[in-house]
């Protein structure tokens, strides 16, 4: 494997309003450090892709952003969201996760009906108004481009849906909470191309109202849908720039090698 200098990095300086930013994030699993000193800013209403080889720490980094690494890893550094350091142990993680939703690589609907999948968390959060619930149900399924396919079988088990539908349901479930930021960890890697392109459409639609950070292995996908792209390598952020620039004129050799498949 070629070795690259981790200090050789390029991070774009962004000026617009930020949805969330991290400041010198370090993550360790026990004694193994998985993320080193990562500071990134994610502009509002944009789609940002995280790319990099397997094990480079993309998931680890993403999971910090809504504290999903609590109890699994130790996370140092600041994560600023609405001027609050949400990595502070005193921050209410449950609130954090309501505002920063997450969708995982493998679809994980609850073993409940489609309706309950969406409404469960809403009800638990104290929304009991029938109309409001119905509205959110339809709105979120619409936004996840699933409404047409399931509107007649809202009370059947979510597990009966196809993989792609399940994944869109998971997205719908997240956006029903009206999050500010949506984190997606390889949401389409287990899916066929058709389902994948549906998910991509959904994501692009969503970015009108929220910020999307998406981990992907699929370079085409990153270049198709995202505004910015961050390239990770062995726990270090190597390059963060506009997607167009990353894929046409990467500033760092490592990025170039990775994108052209001449890496490692």
């Amino acid at each position, binding site marked *: 494997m070629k070795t690259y200098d981790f200090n050789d990095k390029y991070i774009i300086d962004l000026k617009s309003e930020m949805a969330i930013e991290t400041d010198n994030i370090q993550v360790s699993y026990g004694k193994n450090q998985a993320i080193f000193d990562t500071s990134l800013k994610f502009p509002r209403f944009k789609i940002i892709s995280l790319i990099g080889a397997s094990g480079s720490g993309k998931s680890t980094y993403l999971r910090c952003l809504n504290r999903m690494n609590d109890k699994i890893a130790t996370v140092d550094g600041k994560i600023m969201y609405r001027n609050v350091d949400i990595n502070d142990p005193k921050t209410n993680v449950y*609130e954090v996760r309501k505002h920063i*939703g997450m969708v995982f690589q*493998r679809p994980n609907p*609850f*073993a409940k009906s489609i309706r309950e999948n969406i409404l469960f*968390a809403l009800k638990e959060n104290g929304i009991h108004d029938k109309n409001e619930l119905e509205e959110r149900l339809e709105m979120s399924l619409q936004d996840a481009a699933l409404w047409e396919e399931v509107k007649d079988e809202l009370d059947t*088990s*979510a597990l009966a849906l196809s993989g792609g539908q399940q994944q869109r349901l*998971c997205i719908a479930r997240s956006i029903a*909470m009206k999050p500010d930021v949506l984190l997606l960890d390889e949401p389409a890697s287990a899916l066929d191309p058709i389902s994948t392109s549906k998910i991509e459409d959904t994501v692009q639609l969503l970015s009108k109202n929220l910020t999307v950070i998406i981990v992907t292995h699929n370079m085409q996908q990153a270049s198709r849908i995202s505004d910015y792209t961050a390239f990770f390598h062995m726990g270090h952020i190597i390059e963060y720039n506009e997607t167009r620039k990353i894929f046409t004129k990467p500033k760092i050799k490592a990025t170039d090698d990775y994108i052209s498949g001449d890496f490692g």
Partner: protein
Amino acid sequence: MHPKRTDKIATGIIYAVVATVVAILVFLIGYILYNGVPDITWHFLTSQAQSFSAGGGIRDQLFNSLYLLVLTLIISFPIAMGAGIYLAEYAKDNWITDVIRTSIEVLSSLPSVVVGLFGYLLLVNQLNMGFSILSGAIALTFFNLPLLTRNIEESLNSVPDLQKEAGISLGLSDWKTITKIIVPEGLPGILTGVILSSGRVFGEAAALIYTAGQSAPSVSYTNWNIFNANSFLNPMRPAETLAVHIWKVNTEAVTPDAHAISSGSSAVLIIVILIFNLGARFIGNHIYKKMTAAK
């Protein structure tokens, strides 16, 4: 073709082994039912036991067994649930957890006489609870706890982590996620555990001889005041269960029809366990389907 022949022979042997085990069970069940079913009459099920004359029934013993089971479950299930959730969801991988697990295993492999004697010493004598259903239920809790705990832990662990992540990522508390999402999914497994441990509670005698006692004072089935000594619901009365009854009529062969009573009782025991088994499975599936909207 050598491996192929070995494969055939091995398969043959396994079939023979399975056939033997099934034959043993069929024989045992057949033996118990063949000997016992003819003795089961309505009178047998609904009349009081007799010690010196023939024709006694097992009404009180049957009720005591069921009541004891219910009490045992009431005491042990919530504790096991809490402990199972702890082990499946909260326990860290450290020596404390190791100690806890070892404790639970020790409890589960304790000989029932030892538990019985301990119950006798602590509950019956020290705590002055006397020979009573409650003492028996607490003693049986000792058996039930580890079985149920382990089973609940396993059932919860068999629910994919993905489900927990899903719940948590929606801003739900761990507790909500566990109780509302993971537990319902683990329910069929949990129910199986309850059935299996109930079987054990039903059949247990050694531990009960020293705790719930071996006499069945006559009680009134119309007295619903559980604090009344005469009430069938009073948990402080001694209560001979079916299994203890079988043991007693056989060891103290003063009842002329001891053989018929013990065969009949054994058959009743097995049948109750069977019914319980099937019923719980049915109900379990039903609940599961309802909760998960599966068809």
